[in-house]
């Protein structure tokens, strides 16, 4: 019996919460809060001005976060959800969990302007296929070349059911191929090395050398130029245009800390948050930064055309398009 009690005590000690101060709980995706991501700096910067403790809760990736909200409903522990993108904001809004952000959107600098009253963008970037120049001297020049290329040259993709880049690639395929998307998936299938649950796993696998291509962002090479001082990894420019991702955050209406959550959303558009974005999240900031973007950002691929479905279009079709993908890549 004593042993049993001791084990319980151990478990309790391991799980003991540390909060005495007001805590702001933020759900986000894994790479955002990794040691090299923006999470630690943003936490420190916000805690300087808020008299609160920021607690990050890491979820595999953006879409997984939406699913978690569906399961948790109003019982969710989140005060803020950070890391959804415009492809899933409509579906998130339908959960009726989010409160209007109430922030001044006039200073936002996102492509196409901003009018959403619930979700606030913090950064954006075009998706791109990133390739390893040492293994692949000649990259595909279009999505069609990627789909029809040599099956021996593999690509690592993310799962659209859990990852926002994964969903972004699925929508890119849909935007280019329309009714013929299922056929295109079937042609692409032999080139897919694996489909990971989130972006972190895919990019880790890529830099470890498991495949010459990965689905990521136009901005990813900037990381390698700035941090690793190498031009080895490059983004392929596609003639059909590139799909755009605008990453957003929203406050949970039922949160007891709604005012604090709103002040975090306002803080999100200030240099205390925005300055960390270019060199930790490796995306384009959605608002003013204190310093100009690092030089590497000037050497990136500039998409000839931006592809983007409206949130409503994605919401209406997401399930059907995912089923189409599942059936096309299935055995």
């Amino acid at each position: 019996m004593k042993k049993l009690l001791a084990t319980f005590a151990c478990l309790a000690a391991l799980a003991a919460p540390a909060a005495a101060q007001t805590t702001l709980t933020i759900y986000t995706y894994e790479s955002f809060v990794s040691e090299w991501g923006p999470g630690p700096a943003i936490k420190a910067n916000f805690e300087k001005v808020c008299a609160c403790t920021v607690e990050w809760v890491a979820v595999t990736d953006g879409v997984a976060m939406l699913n978690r909200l569906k399961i948790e409903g109003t019982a969710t522990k989140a005060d803020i959800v950070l890391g959804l993108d415009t492809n899933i904001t409509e579906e998130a809004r339908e959960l009726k969990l989010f409160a209007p952000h109430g922030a001044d959107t006039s200073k936002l600098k996102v492509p196409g302007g901003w009018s959403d009253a619930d979700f606030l963008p913090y950064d954006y970037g075009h998706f791109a296929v990133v390739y390893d120049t040492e293994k692949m001297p000649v990259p595909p020049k279009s999505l069609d070349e990627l789909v029809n290329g040599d099956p021996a040259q593999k690509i690592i993709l993310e799962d659209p059911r859990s990852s926002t880049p994964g969903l972004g690639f699925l929508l890119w395929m849909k935007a280019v191929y329309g009714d013929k998307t299922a056929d295109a998936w079937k042609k692409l299938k032999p080139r897919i090395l694996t489909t990971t649950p989130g972006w972190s796993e895919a990019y880790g696998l890529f830099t470890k050398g498991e495949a010459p291509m990965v689905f990521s962002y136009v901005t990813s090479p900037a990381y390698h130029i700035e941090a690793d001082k190498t031009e080895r990894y490059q983004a392929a420019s596609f003639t059909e245009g590139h799909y755009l991702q605008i990453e957003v955050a929203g406050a949970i209406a039922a949160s007891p800390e709604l005012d604090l959550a709103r002040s975090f959303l306002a803080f999100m558009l200030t240099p205390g948050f925005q300055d960390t974005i270019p060199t930790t999240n490796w995306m384009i900031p959605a608002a003013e930064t204190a310093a100009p973007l690092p030089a590497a950002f000037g050497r990136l691929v500039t998409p000839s055309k931006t592809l983007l479905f409206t949130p409503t279009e994605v919401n209406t079709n997401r399930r059907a398009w995912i089923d189409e993908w599942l059936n096309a890549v299935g055995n």
Partner: protein
Amino acid sequence: MATETATPAYRTATAFILIAVAAGLGPLLLFAITQGGRIGLDAYVWRVLSFTLLQASLSTVISVALALPTARALVRHRSRARPILLSILAVPQSLPAIVVVLMLVTLFGASGLMGGLLNLYGLAGILLAHVYFNMPLALRVFTQTLQGIPPENRRLAAQLGLHGWSLWRMVEWPALRPVIPRIAALIFLLCAGSFVVVLTLGGPAATTLEVAIYQSLRMDFDVARALTLSLLQVTLCAVLVALAGRSAWTEQLPRRRMDGDTYEAPGRAERIFNALCILMAALLVGGPLLALLVEGIRHISPGLLMLQALMTSTAIAALSTTLALALAWPIAWRQRRARGLTTVTPLLGLIVPPAVLAMGWFILVRGLDGGALLAAVLIVILNGLMALPFAVNIVAPAVASWSERQERLCAQLGLSGWPRFRIAEFPALRGPLAQAGLYAFSLSLGDLSAVTLLGSQGLVTLPSLLHAQMGHYRSDDAMGTGLLLAILCLGLGALANSKRLAS
């Protein structure tokens, strides 16, 4: 009390299991009703079902096909290496699935020692992992069967000058034939329900029912589809269990010593063939193990996180073992008198997909501010239920045989209740109890599925730490964690199989 009516302990155990299952299914059914959606067999569901059957069939066929000639080769040659080889062959069964996946990635990943040989992500990788687990299982059963051929038969065969093909056809095959369907059904069942291997090596193109259930709950939150898939999984399991018969789980194989001299010495061609078979088995099992050992020793570094994970895992395993034994004990006693429901209840935790139970519980407790502690409690319950059928299968036969020999004597002596347990039951049954306990402990210690399904931030077990390290390609750390986990599980497995406990 050895009366014909159910004891309060048995009623409590049954109620606990039924409530746990209902608490899992109930909230999901409610969600399915309110959420709407289609319970039905669409193209995706069919695809998942057919892939499940395909990979399980292939895994079974390959495992059995490799095991048959190897078992024969092992029995035909008297060698000092045989006991060593047989004990190496026992290793995969004690290893956690996530450790086996790590070993295979180390060897066959693109940057592994044998990289580029095959694409690990997909059918090939899944088959490799399943054969790694199940070929040795089949091999051990076949070897024991061949060793159990009565010496008279073999002597007669030798006198008749049977060897090679005719010996196989007249003596060996007839002995093996009745065993094959049972072991095949068991392997098929294990592969059809495989979760961790398919979750880590599969993908959208290679998904089994068990993983698809998890994905439709965690990724799509399509409860109706998850329930459809679960229904299929339960049906498939039920059919297989019925086909395999309960005998496949409890079968005691003949354990006779063989005198190898009665065989005629194999010819040169057969010797080469046999050597190749044995080499293949040794490489298949030993190769990945060696890779883990060599890499793991270089990278094992007991950091704070690993220590914390070890403590958490040990605590969870200790509690779930206690739960499994507490449930198994009254059920085992009941089984000597009653059949029917008594044999089905302990299987419920295995038949109802763990993903369904976990999600139901998760929905049920989502309003509570439990954090990691609550998650740990749910993991303990899930692991306890998962180990229960195995614990019952170890304890029940021992209880039955004790009862036949001693129960009347106890009644004559007026021993009952606690004194009977202390004086008569426990001393006689502690061997099987310890064996069941060690088994449950090892199962829980190496289990990734429950913590994947129920885990919360801040709850790190050894398998979940290993999974995270693998997911973020910190392969050096992963090798160290993997080795520690492998050593713990192998130690527990060896202890459980030791002669002192088995007798």
